[in-house]
């Protein structure tokens, strides 16, 4: 019998090994995203457009009042570059550009968005942006906080286009194990392992107000000065008290109805038991099974507008690189302190978002359909900082490190690199990605803050290993080699290099210049193409969103 068992064991091993080899060596080709994605129909497109028009009315008003002439419309390639960078963290591939340009003009953008939403890179990239708002970039408490698991779960929710109010309620109120119900990592990320071993109501209150209500109430945690706002220390701790019941146990996070929240207020002699209360819109607070559920229902209540405004502002920032209101997580509850008004676009976008079931993909479609999103960043008149501030011209913003590495990898590949790429390609990309980020620097939690480029970043781009490997002679992963060998002539070579790296065609002047360079006999053709791609990768046009 023993030999039979051994035989069985060997057979299982063989099957396992051949499965792994099969998966690694034989390319798997599921249906391509581009093939299954469909543009919205004309009726739906018109509906989105109608909302965008309402949004644009406000922008037009602002432009007229300020006497700003809006920049002309950007061309389609500029628009898909913005969308890809914002929602997938990379530039469009040559392959994608070709398919895009073959589509009928009126449905191109709509199709591009459908394709984006069906692309796993959308879920992963946007999930990472949201994660930074929800739990930050810290490693968090050992074992009981599972960052990767949380991220994958968030990505799944985005791919399913889960209504955002439901997603939020789960983050705030869910019970269970950090592995089993990944939403609870929002709570476990704050557990103080060296101290109380409990989730920290103070941290959670800070996160909830910033991430979901775009209110920086954490300033009043220790004192009553809210820099012009009228929230008090008590408001903060009463909000924190909603988290008092959350505790960590062998079955994960659960609620203990008996827990109390004690706090010693500034200038107070002793600690007091703090009841739970919300800082505004108290009439929307209703009864529920647990304190956290009460809070979650209040936060996501359709009439609690700060909730919709917060995510509208954040999605605008993710899609465009710059929020409507800066900083992204601080929108005054009563509008501008001077006029009581919100910046153009915010309220109509929030209205539509609430009216249509907190649908994130619809929100993004509306954003992309607006004139504000589609302005060029150049014009034949002088563009000023005022133009950018009012979205009369598209603001030039620095790409974040992940967008830079994503764009380098894609620019070197011609073919689209996505979840359908070969597993080995994905593994190599993943390794390169992390290595590059370590050296280029991570933007951290506050990634929409304006930052300039640094010297180490420029050194890494000019002399770094990755750029070298992606431009030198290499037939496997290298656009420069492919372009030099496969293009019929120099003007085409220059054009393809521009399309793959900068997502545009060269101007006549640029084409003439680089064609002349390619003809220079001092270097071989392949080396010339390598130099061309190096210059494109090192340009500010590559490193900035525009």
């Amino acid at each position: 019998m023993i030999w039979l068992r051994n035989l069985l064991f060997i057979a299982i091993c063989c099957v396992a090994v051949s499965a792994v080899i099969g998966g690694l060596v034989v390319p798997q080709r599921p249906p391509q995203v581009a093939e299954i994605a469909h543009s919205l129909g004309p009726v739906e497109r018109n509906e989105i457009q109608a909302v965008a028009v309402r949004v644009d009315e406000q922008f037009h008003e602002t432009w007229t009042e300020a006497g700003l002439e809006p920049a002309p419309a950007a061309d389609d390639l500029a628009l898909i570059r913005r969308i890809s960078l914002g929602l997938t963290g990379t530039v469009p591939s040559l392959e994608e550009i070709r398919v895009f340009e073959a589509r009928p003009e009126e449905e191109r953008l709509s199709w591009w968005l459908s394709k984006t939403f069906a692309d796993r890179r959308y879920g992963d990239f946007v999930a990472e942006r949201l994660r930074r708002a929800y739990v930050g970039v810290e490693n968090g408490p050992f074992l009981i906080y599972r960052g990767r698991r949380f991220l994958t779960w968030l990505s799944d929710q985005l791919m399913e286009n889960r209504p955002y109010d439901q997603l939020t309620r789960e983050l705030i109120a869910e019970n269970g194990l950090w592995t089993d119900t990944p939403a609870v990592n929002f709570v476990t990320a704050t557990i103080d392992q060296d101290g109380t071993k409990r989730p920290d109501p103070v941290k959670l209150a800070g996160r909830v107000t910033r991430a979901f209500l775009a209110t920086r109430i954490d300033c009043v945690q220790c004192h009553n000065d809210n820099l012009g706002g009228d929230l008090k220390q008590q408001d903060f701790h009463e909000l924190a008290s909603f988290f008092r019941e959350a505790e960590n146990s062998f079955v994960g996070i659960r609620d203990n109805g008996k827990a109390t929240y004690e706090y010693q207020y500034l200038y107070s002699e002793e600690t007091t038991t703090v009841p739970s209360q919300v800082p505004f819109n108290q009439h929307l607070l209703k009864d529920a099974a647990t304190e956290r559920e009460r809070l979650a229902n209040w936060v996501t209540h359709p009439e609690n507008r700060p909730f919709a405004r917060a995510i509208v502002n954040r999605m605008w920032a993710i899609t465009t690189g710059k929020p409507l209101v800066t900083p992204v997580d601080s929108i005054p509850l009563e509008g501008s302190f001077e006029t009581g008004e919100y910046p153009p676009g915010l309220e109509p976008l929030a209205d539509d978002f609430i009216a249509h079931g907190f649908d994130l993909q619809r929100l993004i479609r509306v954003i992309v359909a607006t004139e504000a999103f589609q302005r060029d960043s150049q014009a034949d008149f002088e563009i000023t900082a005022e133009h950018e501030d009012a979205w009369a011209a598209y603001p030039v913003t620095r790409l974040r490190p992940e967008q830079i590495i994503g764009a380098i990898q894609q620019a070197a590949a011609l073919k689209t690199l996505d979840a359908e790429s070969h597993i080995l390609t994905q593994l190599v990309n993943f390794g390169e990605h992390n290595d590059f980020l370590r050296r280029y620097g991570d933007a951290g939690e506050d990634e929409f803050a304006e930052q300039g480029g640094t010297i180490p970043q420029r050194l890494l781009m000019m002399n770094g290993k990755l750029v070298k490997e992606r431009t030198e002679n290499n037939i496997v992963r290298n656009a420069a080699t492919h372009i030099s060998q496969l293009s019929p002539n120099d003007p085409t070579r220059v054009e393809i290099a521009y399309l793959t790296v900068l997502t545009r065609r060269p101007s006549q002047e640029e084409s003439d210049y680089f064609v002349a360079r390619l003809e220079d006999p001092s270097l071989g053709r392949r080396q010339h193409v390598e130099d061309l791609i190096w210059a494109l990768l090192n340009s500010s046009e590559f490193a900035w969103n525009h």
Partner: protein
Amino acid sequence: MPTKHSHHAGCGGADHFSRRTLLKAAGGLPWLTPLAAQLAAAAEADKSGAPAKSVIVLWMQGGPSQLETFDPHPGTMIGGDTKRISTSSSGVEISDLMPSTAEIMNRVALLRGVTSKEGDHERATYNMKTGYRPDPTLIHPSIGAVMCHELSSAGVEIPRHVSIFPNQWPGHGGFLGNKYDAFKTYDPLGDLPDLPRRVGDERFAQRRKDLDILERTFTRNRRSDLEKNRTLHLATIDKAITMMDSEQIKAFNIEDASQSLRDDFGDTPFGRGCLCAVQLIETGVRCVEVTLGGWDTHANNHQLQSNRIAELDPAFSALIRLLEERDLLKSTVVLCGGEFGRTPKINPAAGRDHWPHGFSVALAGGGIRGGALLGETDPEGEKVTADLTDAVGIADIHATIYQSLGINFHHMYDTPIGRPMAISDGKPIASILA
């Protein structure tokens, strides 16, 4: 931003003679009248010594054990296997694992009662490197970033804030901007990564020229102040090229140093990093942090701490000696410490856990008074130091360093959230300042 302090005339070594010395010679301060005391205080404020110019942080990531390094308690319940030896500073005894350090303790001011409220590695590291506890609303700059922001950059072509062997939390610019982040570098042997050109000089120059064509197209018809006020792209590229071509980058490499000098530091990665730190300071770099990791000894504490100390001991002492020899100690503040100490109580795995309630930090150079000793810990390991006298907060260490650098740490920065923030909210530790 212009430099905030004025450079006084340098003071001259052994024959240095301050008004304070004079007052002391006159019989000491106690009998002075209130008016005279005021005059003396005024004289203190106007010291003749030039402020220090640079800082070296020997960063012990993980939390070194005060009981195995600067604050041994042999023969007590908490003492473990560590013995005590006397040092060149009378009355100061440190661990027998640090014989070389013992010889330079007369140049070192020892703080034995440092306390903080942060017991988590990341939060405590942030606290120690910035002087502020983590705050969800903004990121404070580290010492090196503040120095680069406040002090002149004249004549320096390489980054002025450097982290050697950075772990995941090197010094950062925080709200001052990422251009103040520490430049990260590793074992100072061979070329710096990303510094050498990947192609010949001529071809590189041609590439740089090609870039101008692209920049011309990009800036045309866009914001007129795009390069100047927003991207600074070409300016940063040209600064990077200046650095690539600079003779000063030799400071990042210690291969030209004699083997005997390298041996003095203990020819370990950390020792080489410390030697490199001296070369960098000599070249005009403002702040160098050299990280030595592996101090998080939750098990087998004595053995693991001893291994770390074997690297630290020669490097720290050789660093102080070399700075002194090259006449840099007066102008360089050296800090040796980690994010917290370790529990007096030894756990069942023969380890020590995190202990922010009374741990040691060593300071030297700059305006720091060598041989000074401040604070003590409970030999029973019961009482936390905050309840004892002479406890020192993290912010106070920062204020002390800024004071010796002549940086007005009361200066308020405008932060992105609109809340003014002092460079440091601590109080200089008067008793360890010269």
